């Protein structure tokens, strides 16, 4: 679960990125976070992943209060999250299998667990036939699937996808969104940050719109709410 309660965030250069943001995403929910550049979307993602702390207000992610969490507990909070980025952020000299296994290995999973879990996740994202390929041998859509598999492999409670279709054509974008929807149906909470109008409108999901550091609409209304 994600809960923002009257969250403010100001940076050292004086920029006020968030001005009293409040919203809740319940366990198992699928939500879009939309807004123009500089609206505060990236700040919300950084707050969710613990990269920055709120200036004021309360940020609760999967039962961790990120305003008061001890630094040593941060890795354990992050293990409840899976993050997918627009630029995939895969390790170029590792194969598809190794990229996904890496996420398990670095949190101390055993080889037995890795051998059991990685093939299952790769099959789920439709890459079970491409396990030995390296990222540069894959298409953009396939690379994003690897990134999703990596985000999913540690069985997180929440997947945060930051512009996951930003580098993909419409057909591949739709595939990725269908995959995220499938993951959501399996019980994982999904938050997709995007500014792609058609994509948001093609799914009848909750849309949280932000502009100027404030929530301007929140509901099942589709993208038009954000357009004002």
């Amino acid at each position, binding site marked *: 679960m994600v809960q923002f309660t009257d969250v403010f965030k100001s940076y050292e250069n004086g920029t006020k990125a968030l001005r009293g943001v409040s919203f809740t995403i319940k366990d198992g929910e699928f939500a879009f976070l939309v807004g123009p550049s500089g609206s505060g979307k990236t700040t919300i993602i950084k707050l969710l992943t613990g*990269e920055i702390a709120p200036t004021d207000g309360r940020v609760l992610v999967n039962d961790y209060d990120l305003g008061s969490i001890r630094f040593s507990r941060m*890795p354990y909070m*992050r293990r409840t*999250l899976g993050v997918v980025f627009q630029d995939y*952020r895969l390790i170029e000299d590792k194969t598809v299998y190794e990229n996904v296994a890496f996420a398990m290995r*670095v*949190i101390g999973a*055993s080889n037995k667990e890795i051998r059991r879990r990685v093939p299952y996740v790769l099959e789920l994202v439709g890459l079970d036939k491409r396990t030995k390929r390296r990222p540069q041998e894959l298409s953009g859509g396939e690379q994003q699937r690897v990134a999703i598999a990596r985000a999913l492999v*540690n069985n997180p409670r929440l997947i945060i996808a930051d512009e996951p279709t930003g580098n993909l054509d419409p057909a591949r974008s739709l595939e990725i969104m269908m995959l995220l929807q499938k993951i959501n149906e399996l019980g994982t909470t999904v938050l997709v940050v995007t500014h792609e109008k058609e994509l948001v409108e093609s799914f009848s999901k909750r849309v949280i719109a932000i502009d100027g550091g404030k929530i301007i609409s929140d509901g099942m209304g589709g993208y038009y709410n954000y357009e004002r």
Partner: protein
Amino acid sequence: MRGNRFTYYIREGINSIFSHGFMSFASICIIVACLIIMGSFTLLALNVDKVIDTMESQNEIMAFVNETFTDEEARAIGPRISALPNVEKAVFVSREDAWDDFVSTYENPGFFEGLDSSVARDRYVVYLQDISLMAQTQQALRDVPGIAAVNAHLKISEGFVRIRNVVTLVSLLLVAVLFVISLFIMSNTIKLTTFERRDEIAIMKMVGATSTFIRWPFVVQGLILGLIGSLVSFTLEWGIYKLLTEKLIAQSGISFLTVIPFSAVSVPLLVAFAVVGLGVGVIGSLLAIRNYLKV
């Protein structure tokens, strides 16, 4: 799971060394150079210390007994002198023995015909524990009743002390400066590795790896580089020392120098090299990685 992690740390540490082969080679070379200079100065300091110790043991104060004292009275002063602070031992030399010694140093004893031992004084040859305290001991001897005069080579003792102090100071300074240089080079080598792997580190942080888990492969990398550096430098230092002591000194005929054999210092030197090498490796890697672990 722990064994799994340990294998991971070792494998990643070794991989980093080979994937940045040139920088790894450069770091080992720098560690070797610094350790050899440190080791050479330490060995020089130890040898200077030994030479000075030998000279110290031969440096003595002559305490002359009042000439009105009888032989018995003169000998009675002995325990008081021996009890003084900084006195290693006090050897009584009667005026007869002193006179005979003096006369025997000349080739023609005929010069001293008509003279006898009454012109000499009973005396004590006083050996010191620490020649840097010679002035104080000289004063203490003067204060002993029955001692008429004290003859000490203060200038020589001050010279010895000064040489030792300078060599020790230079060695310490060099060791400190070279340690910092080694640390800087090692830290930069590992910083290059961390810079190339910054995306990997970011992914590790993102998926919830602990700082300790991220840090260990780099520490292992530093440990291995430090260990190789210290072993190579120990071997080279051994060769250089043997060459200098056995060949150079023997051939140039500087026979009065007593050099410490390498076998006497090899174990402490190996331990010191290993500690410095490993210390540089570990501290260098920790310094290099710390910025990446702040998030």
